[in-house]
């Protein structure tokens, strides 16, 4: 049997919270298990409201924090056991993050392109400047940008959409097998959001990269993902094929989630209908 690309076995994370005298433990993630296959890249969406533990899960998958219980295996290897710099680098070449806030994605004091070169040198084995620039340009082309557009620019000189695409390009430089995208479009202008969402789907096709797509937004998850899990209070309440789950949700929370989206759409449809029929009173609804 071939090893899974990523496998989570009964992963839990508890944080110590409260004051000095009222120490209590808060479970951010409890008993989460799922796995991603190595052969067929897929977009795997983790859906949940804020506080559902999805970002804690992302941090653990990225090896930034260790699970309190359970194991996370990447290609059969325990992520928390990567101690030496060599092992860590090997892991980083395969797994890369895309985070929420594009305006925080680059050090405000450093030019954006330099950051890409550093990644190319550290993770893609670029030995000189020309190789680093070629790697950076190649990755930027994948997201519809070019090195010429970014060269010598500071983060504050770029738009949110450009920055987020540059952040995605940065993640693509080492040619990873898995991208962990934590709410990657929630701070992007609505007009650009779909461009980036489609970009993920496109990357899966072209670069055969698996994507863990973490979001609170049911609609984008539905658009791009192959499989989804719905999380609540740190637990997975429902999982399976994206279309099936969203068409026939079983768990009360999933049903509630879906209904809230539908009710917004319903209100929208009703309102536009009323406005178009010339009823000005109705537009107040």
């Amino acid at each position, binding site marked *: 049997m071939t090893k899974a690309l990523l496998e989570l076995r009964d992963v839990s994370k508890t944080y110590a919270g409260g004051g000095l005298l009222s120490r209590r433990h808060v479970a951010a993630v409890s008993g989460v298990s799922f796995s991603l296959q190595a052969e067929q890249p897929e977009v795997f969406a983790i859906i949940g409201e804020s506080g559902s533990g999805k970002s804690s899960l992302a941090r653990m998958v990225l090896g*930034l924090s260790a699970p309190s219980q359970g194991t996370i295996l990447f290609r059969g290897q325990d992520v928390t056991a990567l101690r030496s710099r060599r092992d*860590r680098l090997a892991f*980083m070449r395969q797994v890369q993050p895309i*985070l929420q806030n594009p305006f925080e994605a680059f*050090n*405000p*004091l450093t030019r954006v392109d330099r950051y890409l070169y*550093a990644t190319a040198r550290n993770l893609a084995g670029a030995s000189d400047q020309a190789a680093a620039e070629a790697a950076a340009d190649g990755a930027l082309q994948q997201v519809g940008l070019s090195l010429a557009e970014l060269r010598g620019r500071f983060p504050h000189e770029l738009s949110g959409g450009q920055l987020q695409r540059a952040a995605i390009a940065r993640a693509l430089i080492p040619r990873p097998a898995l991208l962990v995208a934590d709410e990657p479009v929630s701070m992007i202008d609505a007009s650009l959001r779909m461009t980036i969402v489609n970009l993920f789907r496109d990357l899966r096709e072209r670069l055969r990269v698996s994507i863990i797509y973490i979001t609170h937004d049911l609609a984008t998850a539905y658009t791009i993902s192959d499989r989804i899990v719905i999380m609540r209070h740190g637990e997975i309440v429902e999982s399976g094929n994206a279309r099936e789950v969203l068409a026939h949700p079983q768990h009360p929370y999933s049903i509630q989630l879906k209904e809230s989206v539908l009710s917004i759409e319903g209100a929208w449809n009703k309102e536009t209908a009323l406005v178009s029929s010339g009823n000005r009173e109705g537009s107040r609804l």
Partner: protein
Amino acid sequence: MRAYGFYLLKRLMQFALVVFIGINVAYVITHATPIDPVEQTISAATAFGNTSPEAIDMMRSSLQDLYGTGGSALDQWLAFWGRILVGDFGPSLSAFPTPVATLISRALPWTAGLMLVSTLLAWGLGNLLGGLAGYYRRNRLLKFAGIIAMGIHPVPYYIVAFVLLILFGYVWPILPITGAYAQGLRPGFNLEFIGSVIRHSLLPALSLVLVGIGGWFMGMRSLVPTIMAEDYTVYAELGGVRKRRILGSYVMRNALAPQVTGLAMTLGAIFNGAIITEQVFGYPGLGSLLISAVHAGDYSLVIGVTTISIIAVSFAVLLVDLLYPLLDPRVQAR
């Protein structure tokens, strides 16, 4: 680069304006006092023996020339600025006829040397240790350093100074407690003199560093976690950037900008601190000079010292303003 040139020009003009207004305020305040330097000198000179009224009149007119107190208020003010612009503050009253400029140039190097070195030392050490303590939260040694720094910080400065005096001047007398160098030593570029200067500056410098370091330490340590939580630090960690480099070029460099502003403020306030330090440690700097000038009613000397400190403060602020756009690309040189 042209934008920077324009920025430079604008800041220089602001600097000149601030200095101009500051000196005028000092001028008005000192001239509003009832002390008349001319009459004081005359009464001092005629206190013993008889002097003919003609001689007193001659003395008065020549002294009025010397102090620039003859003529209308406008004439006096113009004469004052004419002299200030060439660095002439007139003769000192209390140390007549030594020019104020000479007294200041004697005292200034002591104050500037002591205060600059100890302020920069406190700033550098505080930021470095604070940054390390924020980054390596678990390190016991750094935790301990934090407790010490925070413990000393809220103690009033003069108490720290006196405790040091008692400890190293009386309980364990290994350091000189007063003066800038050993008495009877001739100033010059020789090892004995330089060694004596350093030994005499240790206690005042130590007191300033001890009290100053805590603020920088705490400021830096509380800035670090917010920067470590920024996405770009996470990206750097997962981009294979080495830890030491993350601490240096990501965490510390981003935290430094507000600390540099703080440094400018502190450098500006150097002269306030100098007064207490120099009094406690008998250090012959500007602070001591200012106190003795105030006690003696020597208002040309007061104006001289005030002018120097106004220029120094404004210059420190100017320098930081000029450096800031180079430090942080987000601050546009406009």
